[in-house]
């Protein structure tokens, strides 16, 4: 993994991946809440927010965690995916995590300016109010404490892999962004 990053993104990229892997080793064995906090902090500090058009010269690019870490830059989805896969690797159950499309009010409570955004939601129980891992603020807060975010739609890996996850090379999978992202990750040698 490191060599891939080094090859593609140079010495600093390789080192960043190395640092992530070693940090990940340190997070094992912590309770889930602590893991959430550490990971959220780790990525929010390390990764610089930047539009895909700047980082990848594409309008909308779903970067793999490796790419995001090596580049140390990404937009909201890239934060979410990096956090998501890191948490999954640490053993957080699939059905507790969701990628949630939200409408975010920017510029304070009275602002009418909003933008499309994505956050990672953590449901300790199915009925619970989730914790929100957001790249805009460092702190993890309950959804109820985030009046600036209006959830629109959420998804997780379950729907993607239903019925025949083994057949990853079917052409229809290549048009799904999720599957495409997973395939790219696999080619980088990262399969959480």
């Amino acid at each position, binding site marked *: 993994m490191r060599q891939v990053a080094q090859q593609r993104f140079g010495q600093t990229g390789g080192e960043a991946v190395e640092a992530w892997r070693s940090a990940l080793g340190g997070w094992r064995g912590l309770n889930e809440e602590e893991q959430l906090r550490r990971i959220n902090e780790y990525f929010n500090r390390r990764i610089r927010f930047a539009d895909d058009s700047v980082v990848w010269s594409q309008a909308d690019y779903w970067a793999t965690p490796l790419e995001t870490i090596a580049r140390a830059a990404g937009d909201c989805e890239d934060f979410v995916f990096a956090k998501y896969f890191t948490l999954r690797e640490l053993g957080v159950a699939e059905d507790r995590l969701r990628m949630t499309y939200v409408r975010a009010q920017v510029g304070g409570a009275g602002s009418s300016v909003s933008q499309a955004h994505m956050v990672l939601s953590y*449901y300790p129980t*199915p*009925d619970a*109010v989730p914790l929100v891992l957001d790249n805009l603020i460092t702190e993890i807060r309950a959804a109820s404490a985030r009046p600036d975010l209006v959830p629109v739609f959420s998804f997780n890996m379950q729907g993607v892999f*239903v019925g*025949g996850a083994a057949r990853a090379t079917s052409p229809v999978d290549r048009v799904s962004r999720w599957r495409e992202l997973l395939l790219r990750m696999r080619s980088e040698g990262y399969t959480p």
Partner: protein
Amino acid sequence: MSLLRRLWVSVVVAMTVVLVGAFAVSLFTARSYFEQQLTAQASDGAVSLALSMSQQSKDVATMELLVTALFDGGHYRQIRFTDPSGRVLVERIQDDTAEGVPGWLVALVPMEARPGQALVSDGWRQVGKVSVVAARSYAYRSLWRGALQLGSVMLAIGLFWAMAVSMLLRWVRRPLDEMAEQAEAIGAGQFRVIEEPRVIELQSMARALNRMSERIRALFSEQAGRIARLRDEGSHDGGTGLLNRAAFNGELRRVLSDPDVAPGGCLAVLRIADLVVLNQKLGRARTDEWLAAVAEALQDGLEAGDDVALGRLGGAEFGVLVPGMGLADGRAMLERLCSAVTALDLEVDAAHRLHLDAAAVAYRRDDTPGELMARVDSALMRAEAEGGIVAEPGGSPLPIPVPGAEGWREMLEGALARHEFTLTSYPVLTSEGGLVHREYMLRLPTAGAVLTAGQFMPAAVRVGLAAACDLEALRLGIARLGESSEPIAINVAPRSLIETDFLDGLDILLATAGTGASRIAVEVSERGLDASLAGLEALAEVLARHGAHLGIEHFGRQLAALPRLYALRLAYLKLDGSFVASLHENPGHQRLVKAIVDVAHGLEVAVYAEQVHTAEEWAAASVLGVSGMTGPEASRRLAAA
């Protein structure tokens, strides 16, 4: 299986494999495409349903409405909405069997439509999950229709292909068949030329075959021509083309000793008077022309017959030998010949017209050639002295009963019915004295005398009983097979071959002989066989079927037929006695016999000599490669042994 058939089968098999393979690939490609479409459709349906549900109020009625709205579109087999704990809240399922699509297609090409799933939420709260499965029936219908269309197109292509290949192979086969026929024909002694085929690979072969056919024909005709020339040189007079004196004497000797010909007949001599004067007046060249014209007139004047011999005996002397002819008929014949020559109206000058003297004598078998020639000479001298034609009876009356046609018929039919015929045999020996076979001939004992085949067979032919007599001879011969282990030969009249019942009778008789049939040879005289050898082929076939052999006797005239006789799987030839007479002294006959033996050996046909009278003739024939002898000398040697 023929090569062409194998080729056809392999092409058809390859073609079938290709077409079926193409069909299967296209079927499975279509299947895979449909599956992906169904999955994408299910996935999209699930996402859009979940999205709408997330936006609406979450009471069960609204949820049901949304699910039903999507479901009633009819493109989904199952839509299910479950709460986070997995309890089913709303579910719609419809039957998904494709009507009009055979069950075996569904079983053979199973189509898997993966369900699409999406999550429904109410704000931050999870409400549940929708799972959507697309209906496969319309995909199956499309697949079936496509398969039918593709299948019919492929079937059409396949049929067209098979037909085209069949036609191509037929086109190639025709010249091959022609060539095979040509090769067969060459084997059978017919040398035909075929048209060169348009198939390039076969052209050179056909050309080579044609060339070979031409060459073999040329070779055979050259060889036959050479033998004919040798025969003519040795036995024919250069100026007139008639038999020379030696050949005529040989013929005379044969007729007087051959038990197979009529035991009596008529010998006549014609002489042009004053040849010396003619020679002086006309010169040698003109005289020769005259003689040739006379010979031609004589030949035309003779009725064509089997055993009639016409020869130039000396300068202006011609001999005519007609076995079986009475003296009165001989006289009439001479009158006819003389008037034919007179009609030529050859004139030397006023004083000298061409004039013929002629005499005829009757003979019987016991006469010697020398005595007979002396008698006819004295008769001719009388004719010169007296003028006109002299006919003298023989020394003693001929022992031939002449009962007339009806009498003959009655006598032969009676003899056949009562099985009165007996056999007499003549041995054929190898040059070392071993037995080749015994040649059996019919005898008919009557009250007065024992009749030979030469006496009654001409009558039998006339009254249509030749075939019956020949079959009787064969029957008696087969009866003799059991008495010894000697091979036998039976004579068959050429006339029998064209009689309808003969071959069937022969077939039945040979079947009774069983394995002994391989010791039977049937021989046919070359005289009387027409040039096409009609009937011999059928005879050869019947004989071959039973393992019996075919021989030709009195051979020597139709030399050109030799290669064709080979096609009949001929076992042996018996050389006519006239070629054997004084063989040791006649270089012309020696060359001829040698040539015939050479050709016959090339064709794997044995050659025997007939009418071997002396030890000198025997030795000469043996040196020339003749492998069997028959005649008085053979009988003597067998008796001595």
